[in-house]
C-alpha cells in the first residue's frame, strides 16, 4: 500500500514539475529556433520548475516526509538543488552561448549588453535573483563550516534558508514573467500557483509548528 502510494506521489510530482512545463512549452505558439536554443530553453524551463518543486521536498510538506524517509527526501532535495542551481546560475551564459555558432553580435557583446540594460526591471530582477540564488547555494553548500564559524544554530540556518528561498522564488518568478519568452498565461499561472502554495506551506509550518515533532533529532545531516 505504502509502496503504491509512494509510486503515485512520485509519478504525480514528475507529471506536475516536468510534465506540465513540457506540455505548456509544446502547446504554446512560440517561435521555434535552432535545436540547440530550444534545448537550452527547455532545460531552463525544467530547472525553473524543479526549483519550485523544492518547496515540496522539505520539512514543510508533512505528507511527503511521513510517506518517505526524511533523509531520503533531503537527499533528493539536495541532488535536485545542485542540478537546478547549476543550470540557473549558468542561465545568463546559456542565453548567449549559441551566438558562438552563428552570425551576428558575439556572445560577449550580447552578454554585456544584456547585463547592463538596467532600465529594464526584468533585468534588475534577474540580476537580483541570480545574486540571491548564489547566496542561497553557497550558504547551503558551506552550511556546516559557516554555522560552525559564525556559531549559528541549525534551526536558525533553516529559517534563513527557507525565507531566502521564498525571496529567491518571488524575484525569479517575477523575472520570468517579465522576460520569459515561454511565459504565456498557462506557464505564469502554473508558476505563480505552485510558488504561492510552496511558500504558504513553509509559512504555515513557521507560524503553526506541528505539535509533535515528526522527525528524530538526527536530522542535522539534511538540508531544508
Amino acid at each position, binding site marked *: 500500500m505504502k509502496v503504491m502510494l509512494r509510486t503515485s506521489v512520485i509519478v504525480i510530482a514528475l507529471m506536475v514539475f516536468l510534465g506540465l512545463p513540457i506540455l505548456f512549452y509544446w502547446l504554446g505558439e512560440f517561435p521555434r529556433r535552432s535545436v540547440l536554443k530550444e534545448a537550452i530553453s527547455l532545460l531552463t524551463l525544467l530547472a525553473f520548475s524543479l526549483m519550485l518543486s523544492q518547496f515540496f521536498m522539505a520539512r514543510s510538506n508533512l505528507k511527503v516526509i511521513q510517506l518517505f524517509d526524511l533523509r531520503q527526501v533531503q537527499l533528493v532535495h539536495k541532488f535536485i538543488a545542485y542540478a537546478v542551481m547549476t543550470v540557473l546560475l549558468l542561465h545568463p551564459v546559456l542565453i548567449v552561448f549559441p551566438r558562438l555558432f552563428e552570425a*551576428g553580435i*558575439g556572445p560577449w557583446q550580447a552578454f554585456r549588453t544584456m547585463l547592463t540594460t538596467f532600465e529594464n526591471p526584468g533585468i534588475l530582477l534577474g540580476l537580483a535573483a541570480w545574486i540571491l540564488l548564489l547566496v542561497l547555494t553557497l550558504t547551503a553548500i558551506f552550511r556546516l563550516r559557516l554555522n560552525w564559524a559564525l556559531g549559528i544554530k541549525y534551526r536558525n540556518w533553516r529559517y534563513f534558508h527557507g525565507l531566502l528561498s521564498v525571496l529567491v522564488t518571488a524575484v525569479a518568478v517575477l523575472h520570468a514573467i517579465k522576460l520569459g519568452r515561454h511565459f504565456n498565461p498557462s506557464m505564469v499561472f502554473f508558476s505563480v500557483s505552485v510558488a504561492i502554495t510552496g511558500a504558504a506551506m513553509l509559512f504555515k509550518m513557521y507560524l503553526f509548528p506541528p505539535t509533535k515533532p515528526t522527525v528524530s533529532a538526527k536530522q542535522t545531516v539534511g538540508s531544508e
Partner: protein
Amino acid sequence: MTTTEQQSGPTRRAFMAMGGSAAGMAALGVNAGWGQNTSVSDASAFTTATHDCDVLVIGGGMAGLFAAVKGHDAGAKIRIVSKGRLGSSGLTPFAKGFFAFDPAQEELTLDEYVAAVSRSALGTNNPVYTRQTAEHSLARVEELKAWGFFDSNLYNKSFMTPIEARGIPLHERVVVTHLLKDGERIAGAAGFRLDAEEVVIFRAKSVVLCTGAGAFKPNGFPVCDLTHDGTVMAYNIGAKVTGKEWNDGHVGRAKNPAATYDGWGDMFDRRPSLEGVGIRHDLGVDANYLAYKLGNPVEAGPGSGPGKNVAGGPFRPVEFADNGPPPGPPEAAGMGDGPPAGGGPGIGGGPPGMRGPAMGGASAGMSIHKSEGLVPINDRCESNIPGLFAAGDALGSHMCGAIYTQIGSSLAGSAVQGAVGGEAAADYARDVETPILEETELAAVEEEILAPLRRKAGYGPAWVTQTLQGIMIPNFVLYIKKESILSAALAYIEELRDHHSPMLRAADMHELRLAHETSNMIISAEMKLRASLMRKESRCSHYRLDYPDVDDENWRAWINIYKDESGDMRLEKQPFDTWPAQT
C-alpha cells in the same frame, strides 16, 4: 520641395494621374492615398539644435567612416550624421567582398588593370578613379584589419573603434534633408531627429556626402533606406549629377522577393573577405532583355538556366563574352566574395541556392555602384559647389564604369574615396572662414522640413512611393527602354513631382522621413527618365530598343544633370576622359 500649404483636395488632373499611372495599385489594396493627417507630432512644439564643425560627414557607411577618420587625422573638427546607425545602414552592412590590389600578387600591372576595366566598361569608366581605388585599396585594408572589420559579419563595432578613439561626435538617427549654402559655397546641412521633435542644423565649412546612391525601395535588394537623398539635396543647391541612365540589373527570387536575407543565401551571415583582380562585364540588362523577349526565361539557380539565346540585346565585348550573362548577385553587386555563381552558359542570375523562377527589378532605381551621383571636378572627390565633396556611391566617379567590372570594388572604392574626400574636405576647411547662416533662410528650411507634419490632409508617402514604383519599375520602362514609354513615364513622374510631392502628409517622424524620401525618389526618377531619353544609343547597362547599338561617334560622353536658374532640370554632355568645364 515647395512649401505650399496645400489643404484642398487633389485636382481632377491629379486624380486621373493616380488612376492611370497606378492602375493595379488600388487593386493591390495598398495604403490609402489621400487622407486626413492624424498627426501626432505637434510641429509647433519643435526645438532646434545647432552644431558646429569644420567638416560634416553625412552618411555612416564605409565612405563616411573613412571620410571622418581621414578628415580628423588631417586636423579638421568632424561630425558624422546618419539617418541610421554607423555601419548598419545603407548598403555597407551587406557588402562582403573587398577588392585589394596587391602588386606583389597580381599578374596585371596597375596600368594593365586600368586598361582592362576601361575595355569592359566601353570607355564609361573614369580611369583616374579606377586607378585610385586599386592604388589605395591595400592601405585601407590594413586599417580595417586593425579595427577588426574582417572579424564579424556586423560592422558597427569595428567602425566605432576608430571613431571612439578619435572622439568624433556621431549623430545617429538624424535625417538630413537640406544642404545649406552661404553665397556660392557650402555652409552646412539641416534635418530632423527620428526620436525627438527636434530640427537639427549643422554649420560646417565643408560637407562630404557619403549618402550612397539609392533606388525606388525595390523588393529583393537591401537598399530600401537609400533614396538618393544626398544626390537630390546637392542637386537642389546647384550640384551636377551624373550617371542616371545606367541601371543595375540584379534579379531576385520570385518567391518572397522582398526577403532579402533569405534571397541572398548566407551572404548576410558572412564575414567580409578580400578579392583580387577579377574583371567582368556583369549586372547589365542582359537578363532583362531575355525576359522582355521571352517572358520570364530566368529559371532556377546558377548554371541551370535553360540556356536560351535570343538575337539582339545589349552589346558585350568579345573578351568578356565567356563571363556569360549576369552571374548570381552575391559576388556581383560587390556584395559577395564567392566564386562567380552564374558564370555558366545559362542565364541564371539569381542568388545562390535560389530555386525556382527569378524576378526582375530586385534593385530597381539603382545604378551601377559609383556610376551615379555628384560629378567630380577633380580626383579629390570635389563637386562643383565649393566645399561640397562626395565619396562612395554618392559620387559619380565612374570608378567601375557603367557596368559592373571589378568584384569587390564597391566597398574598396567607398573606403578609398571616403579617405580621399575626407582629407580634401579638411584641406579646404583649413583655409575658409566659418560660414554664416541667415536666420530667414533657416526659417524657410525649417518650414520645408516640417511641412508634411503641418498639412491637415495630404497623400500618404507610402502610397505615392508605390505609385512611383508602379510607373518606374516595369521591365519595359526602367530597363528595356524606348522613346514612347520613357516619355509617357516622364509625364506621370512630372505629375507626381508637381501635384503629389507638395502634398505629402506625415503623421509622425517616421512618416516625415518617408515623405522626404519619396520626394527625393521622384526627382531621381525624373533624372533617370530624362537621361535615358537623351542617350540615344545603347552602352553597358543602358539599353534602348530604338537605339540598340553602341554609338562611339556621338556618345563617348557622360550625361550631367543640373538645375538651372529657373529651377528646371538641364542635361549636358561631358566627354569621357575629361573633367567638367569649370565656370
